[in-house]
């Protein structure tokens, strides 16, 4: 576990759509620089959580705080990576990566330095000036991640970013993500349906129940990296999480 500095707090966080109670009094803390995974059964409201955290939807009750003050997209830096790659087709690779920094009005020199670092870290050197339609799907995904990592963020929220990839590609992206997180130190909430993926990535896993969604359990993953999906300790945690959410 990373140093236990509280970064994000969910306090009695509740969301209803009409009569349908989706999130029921979620109380949780995410620590600074922590890699937290959230898993839960299909339809448990994980995407609703993402929409609430970024302020796209208001909670029915409760709040989310960042460093003790209520989350505000204008004040806090929250970056998102979704399942669908979100990059602008009329901007080059480089200009897509720098977008977040431009919006935050970073000085040009600093933008340049940060973007360059990301281009190297994500293996995009040589493609800086290519447009999205000139690069492969996997590279677009890396541009998306580069942009999310480019600025210091209070929170990086990732919602099933790799679920469309084939297995081999998925692990390649997971390893890349771990390397970036270890190097750049970010607070990450990673939402997934894939239990193996959660155990591979997380320092801590929060398991959600079926709707109305509550926290079922928290599981610490104290395994060294890189992790081996067939190691007995790994399998033990995976089976434990599976047992907790199994509805099939």
């Amino acid at each position: 576990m990373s140093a236990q500095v509280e970064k994000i707090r969910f306090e009695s966080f509740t969301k209803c759509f009409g009569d349908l109670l989706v999130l029921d009094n979620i109380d949780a803390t995410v620590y600074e620089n922590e890699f937290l995974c959230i898993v839960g059964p299909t339809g448990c409201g994980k995407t609703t959580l993402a929409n609430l955290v970024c302020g796209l939807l208001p909670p029915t009750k409760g709040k989310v705080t960042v460093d003790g003050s209520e989350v505000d997209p204008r004040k806090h830096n929250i970056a998102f990576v979704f399942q669908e790659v979100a990059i602008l087709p009329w901007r080059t690779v480089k200009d897509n990566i720098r977008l977040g920094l431009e919006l935050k009005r970073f000085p040009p020199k600093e933008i340049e330095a940060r973007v360059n670092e990301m281009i190297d870290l994500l293996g995009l050197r040589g493609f800086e000036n290519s447009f999205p339609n000139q690069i492969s799907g996997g590279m677009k995904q890396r541009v998306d991640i580069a942009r999310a990592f480019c600025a210091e963020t209070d929170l990086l929220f990732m919602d099933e970013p790799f679920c469309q990839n084939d297995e081999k590609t998925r692990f390649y992206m997971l390893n890349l993500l771990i390397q970036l997180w270890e190097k750049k130190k970010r607070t990450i909430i990673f939402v997934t349906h894939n239990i193996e993926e959660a155990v591979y990535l997380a320092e801590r896993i929060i398991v959600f129940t079926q709707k109305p969604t509550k926290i079922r359990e928290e599981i610490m993953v104290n395994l060294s990296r890189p992790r081996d999906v067939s190691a007995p300790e790994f399998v033990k945690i995976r089976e434990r999480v599976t047992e907790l959410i199994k509805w099939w």
Partner: protein
Amino acid sequence: MPVGKPKIEVDVAHRYDSLMVLDHIRFDVYENEFLCLLGPSGCGKTTMANLIAGLLKPRAGSVKLDGEPVNPQKHNISYVFQARSCLPWRTVKDNVKIALEIKGISGPVAEEKIANVLQIVGLKGFENYFPNQISGGMKQRVAIARAFCVESDLLILDEPFGSLDAQTRYVMQTEVLRICEKMKRTVIFITNNIEESVFLADRLIVFSSAPAKIIKEIEVKLPKPRNVTHPEFLSIRTSISKLTDISQDVAGGYR
């Protein structure tokens, strides 16, 4: 290896103009076998499915069913695509019925077949629902029910669960095995998911990235239903993972 005469004999090569997709591919499928074709995205798996179904003519070689060139008009080949293929203006029941209508089967015989197959895929009670009233997993079950309700020489499933989440996938995989247990079929199941292929297959064929070549053929002897965290299961999965390259698409530009 399975014994006896093969049901399907595939021996093809295919290119689109100058783009080589399938480099000489040769394999057989045996009656009532569950065969998985496993390969990375973009390796030409769907091209292969189309060739086997007779929807596409190979540039070289042939596909034979019971010793004759495959012919969709003559042979009964059912095909479940990755994209959902329910007609939105037809109910669940009427979507399944299409397959029988085309074969000219109607009346009480058709009704009985439909009732039976809907029961097996777990859609009993949903006969009169329209596609927009049911979940993604259920729509996929409608497509599967349609494919299973006629006697077919071959059932081709092309990444049928590609768009489902990891958990719903487990449900559907278990369903497909259960259905196959009840209604013996010769199945070719196409996927890019290693775990899925080891979970389902009697035998699996591993393809390289494009142009696709056969890297290896593996017989999976573990009893079904299989446990995805069993050490033997994981060791088969790991060994397959080591065989395949990460697709050029992703590795491209990475040094």
